[in-house]
């Protein structure tokens, strides 16, 4: 078991009213699994992923990652975990404009103080078909290319778990298919993949899938 979340609740307060964005969610992820979560906008998918990635503290419930409970970890330990064991591809465009494609890919590695990984990064960029753009800045890349940069960045540290929030959201079918093939091959090599998507074609690649509705996983 890589990840085990149980009884997760998250309460938000907006305009004075509180509501449950997550209401008793439990989920466990094993090595090499490819799990898909679909659900309507606003159903709490991103909230769940942020909690699983240790970026957001749940109101109640617990998350174990590789046997360690998040609430018992310091900010440094959680950050170290994100830069080494867990790759998180957030929703939206998350490639940093100040750095080249290669530099963007290397950032988690640099933050973890783990020496030179330029060769590994280049071979990853090769895998996602971006080797020829390694020295370019993000402003000159297309949406699909940018998404592949963030995938390469998340994969550089060979994480045991890859979390992706709508990685194919704004992409055409063919590009989305390419990304799904990357994810499939990653999961075949043992990395667990947890993906949120709106796209049924993408969801079909999963080995297990869930539907999320009003803060509950069905």
């Amino acid at each position, binding site marked *: 078991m890589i990840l085990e979340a149980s009884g997760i609740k998250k309460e938000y307060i907006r305009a004075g009213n509180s509501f449950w964005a997550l209401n008793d969610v439990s989920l466990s992820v094993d090595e090499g699994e490819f799990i898909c979560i679909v659900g309507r906008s606003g159903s709490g998918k991103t909230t769940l992923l942020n909690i699983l990635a240790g970026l957001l503290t749940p109101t109640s419930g617990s998350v174990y990652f590789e046997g360690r409970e998040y609430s018992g970890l310091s900010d440094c330990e959680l950050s170290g975990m994100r830069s080494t064991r867990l790759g998180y591809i957030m929703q939206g465009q998350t490639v940093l404009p100040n750095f080249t494609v290669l*530099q963007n890919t290397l950032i988690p590695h640099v933050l973890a103080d783990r020496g030179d990984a330029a060769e590994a990064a280049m071979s990853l960029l090769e895998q996602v078909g971006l080797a020829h753009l390694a020295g370019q800045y993000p402003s000159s890349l297309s949406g699909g290319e940018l998404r592949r940069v963030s995938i390469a960045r998340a994969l550089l540290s060979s994480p045991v778990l890859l979390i992706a929030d709508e990685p194919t959201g704004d992409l055409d079918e063919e590009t989305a298919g390419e990304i799904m093939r990357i994810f499939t091959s990653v999961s075949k090599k043992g990395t667990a993949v947890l993906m949120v998507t709106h796209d049924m074609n993408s969801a079909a690649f999963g080995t297990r899938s869930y539907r999320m509705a009003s803060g509950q996983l069905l």
Partner: protein
Amino acid sequence: MSEKMSFTFQDIIWCNLKRKPLRSFCLIFLVAALAFVLFGSSLITRSLIKGTDGLAKRLGADLLIVPRGYAQTAEGILLRGSPSAFYMEPEWLEKISGVEGVTAVSPHLFIASLNSDCCSVPIQLIGFDQDTDFIVAPWIKTSVPGILKDNEIVVGGAVAGRVGDTLQFFGRGYSIAAKMEYTGSGFDASVFMNMDAARIAARDCASKMGADAPPEKSISSIMALIDDSSTPIGVAGRINSAFGYVKSGIAVVPAQNIISSVSVSLRMLTGSFGALSAVLWIASFSILALLFSAMLNERRQEFGILRSVGISRKKLIAMVLWESGLISCIGSVVGIFLSALLLMPFRIYIREIFNMPYMMPGFGQLCAIACISVLLSVAAALLASLLSSVKIGNADAYRVIREGGL
């Protein structure tokens, strides 16, 4: 691949600055302004204090004797080099030297020059008597000349030109025989010549201005030294009672009196100067803090992404502080450099503006002022960015992302 292969935390900081040149430039500019004000105001204040410090010693005389009504004018010449001319009879030289307590006297003849092409500030021509002189000789920095010929001059430290150069006054050429050190007093913008040459120059000057020539053999002022057992006030009193305070038509000014009037204006000047620079400083510090906070807010999304790929709070704050530290180092060095560039060559104009004795501190003190200015400016910039960066570092990572608009 032309891409540099190794990529470090320092590179992340550097790229953040380099890829946002306008933002970096604005911040550097503000820190530079901070350092400029800080360095400039401390340098000017130090120079004013140093100019007034030991001024009595630097003037080299205990008593100044001038025609009645010209005491202020003479002070102007001695302290600031404001050119003017006035005359008294040469017999006073002997009379004064006969008074008990007076050990040495030396006459000066003042001639106000027109603006000369050597200098952009008006120059005071002064005739002096080399045999009795105790004022000019101690300040000569080049080798001491022999007896000055009629076409030879000794020039103050601020007068442009080197030994051997020729300066023109009233159509006559004079060659520079020696140059004086900076004294911080009116001597810096003065040109000294022997009495005969000065009388000729005075006649040239008078005819050029259409005025009467000065009386034959006349002098303008007498500088006097007194012995250790007398006080300047006491000797001044003796002179007044010997020749009659009113009847004599002369004024005896103890050098201390000149100095104390100067220290009063120094206190006022440094006080208002300090207040002004404090206001400027607080203003630029506030702008800096505001700018940092706006800038860091605008970068929330960027910070959120960095948090999602594993930067810790500590490291995020360190990154921001490194950025502002680097910016403020560059900025403060630039600001101090510009400030020095402006203040060092134009010390004469600055003295004109403040109308006060002005003397630059030595190299060591200059470096100390520069270092303190850099330290304070960097500290101010770090403090300005610390508040906002800690706020962002401590925010829930998810909120950082949310509020960034992802």
